[in-house]
């Protein structure tokens, strides 16, 4: 798994812009895992996330000459992916409503774990994941961006299209809730990784 703070080689980005398909492949491989990880936080619809990543890279290739070098490629990709998933989800919902006339897809997100395939590392970890999944969707997203993908609060605000204070609030409120619940359910758990 690629680390969040590892930067892609500048040369790869440059070659990609010049139309080098190997560089394009390298770019994709470098970020695909992280984008899938983040995508699963925005939507539990696996196909939707996959299609959006596909669209994202296809368009990235087609517009490569026009993209001025983003300061952070990762930030750019995350922001664009979020936009794509939302837009694709919207048109899917839209089509469904045309045919069925219902908004079921917009209802509360299902917690079917079949979409999230991970290895249960430990009972405690599973416990924390369960608590995270009980947070409001946007708090989950902010937590994912902050603690796993290492974005700053300012970048999170920009990716999620909210103001800076809201991004800070999402994170703080989520952390407070997690801490309270952890205290109640598994008191000893917090010391689990102290010497990690």
């Amino acid at each position: 798994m690629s680390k969040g703070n590892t930067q892609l080689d500048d040369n790869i980005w440059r070659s990609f812009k010049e139309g080098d398909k190997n560089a394009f492949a390298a770019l994709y491989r470098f970020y695909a895992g992280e984008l899938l990880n983040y995508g699963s936080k925005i939507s539990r619809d696996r196909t939707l996330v996959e299609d959006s990543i596909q669209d994202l890279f296809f368009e990235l290739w087609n517009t490569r000459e026009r993209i001025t070098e983003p300061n952070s490629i990762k930030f750019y990709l995350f922001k664009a992916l979020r936009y794509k998933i939302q837009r694709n989800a919207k048109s899917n919902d839209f089509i469904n409503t045309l045919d069925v006339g219902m908004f079921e897809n917009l209802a509360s997100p299902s917690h079917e774990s079949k979409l999230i395939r991970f290895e249960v590392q430990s009972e405690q970890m599973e416990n924390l994941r369960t608590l995270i999944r009980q947070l409001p969707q946007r708090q989950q997203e902010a937590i994912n961006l902050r603690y796993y993908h290492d974005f700053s609060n300012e970048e999170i605000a920009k990716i999620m299209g909210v103001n800076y204070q809201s991004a800070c609030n999402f994170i703080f409120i989520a952390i407070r809730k997690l801490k309270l619940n952890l205290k109640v359910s598994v008191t000893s758990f917090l010391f689990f990784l102290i010497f990690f």
Partner: protein
Amino acid sequence: MDHKNLTVEDLASNESFIDWVKQSDPEAVKYWDLYISTHPDIKAKVEKARALVLNLKAAEGIDYDRAQVDSIWAKIQDRVEAKTTRSPQGTGSKMTWAVAIVSIFLLSTSIVFWFLSRPAGHDQTLSAYNQQGDDFIERINETDQPLEVQLEDGSTIVLESKSRLKYKKGFLHDSSRQVYMLGKAFFNVTKNPYKPFIVHSNEIVVKVLGTSFRIESPEHGENILVSVKTGKVSVFAPTDVIKNNKRDGVILLPNQQVTYARKNHQFEKTLIESPEFLGEGITSKDFVFDNVPIARAFQTIESAYGVEIIFNEEVMRNCYITAPLGSESLREKLKIICETIGASYEIIDANVVINSAGCQ
């Protein structure tokens, strides 16, 4: 920061503290190392917060599936190849299209579209309305009244005065239903997901599977207008423009329209002048808002008209609306709501964008 009352959650959500935990910023490392050594009483909290930060990182590090990464890449490559080579005889690419078509159709039982894998030059030559041939059927409306033309597949086209329509004899046997039109016409296309319906009009190409829409494309007009009543429609610019500008076209949903400026090859997407309700179950009564959160009022409007309303949920959290709306037009409704809560709206790219500083 009031360090005396620092809580575990204060620490765990503090950016500089997180940097210290991850050892990613030397400044933060220096600061917190010093701080902790000079404030021994905070140590227990620091340890809890540090564990929480690390556990969160581990919990979010859900392993992804390599096969998934590979399969997405295969699809991206197919699309990139299809675009650069545009080879007509690749059976592989034909298969891909077939699979794509079937899966799209299964996913949404409604109208979808796709790019044809046929070579670009082919489309371009066919798009000329004035091509010659004995095997074409042409209908010209020289009256002052609209003329309804029924095609073999059940689709109907209402041709306005001075408008012309042309299609090949037995065009239903081709892989797609291609017609040529100049002037103004309203199309009601019978759905057939296996045979897209393609209208060539001047230099633009409109592709649908089944839907109703209108094209205004006078032979010597400056602009071409396509507006959608039902379904989903894609509008493409001429192939050479696509190549140079890398612009693939525009997708339109009901109540949206696009104007194509022929001179500078620009698409401009917006809402039609008077958007209509999308479903039959929607009545004026749905818009009687009595102290309703603004987000819910917007949602009612979004689903009734199929528009997207973009607003800052956080900022507008305290906005409530009381307004007995009903049969006003969409723009009128938006205007009244905005005036009530001291906001304003713009229509940008067929979306409604609300500007608001929030409510007290």
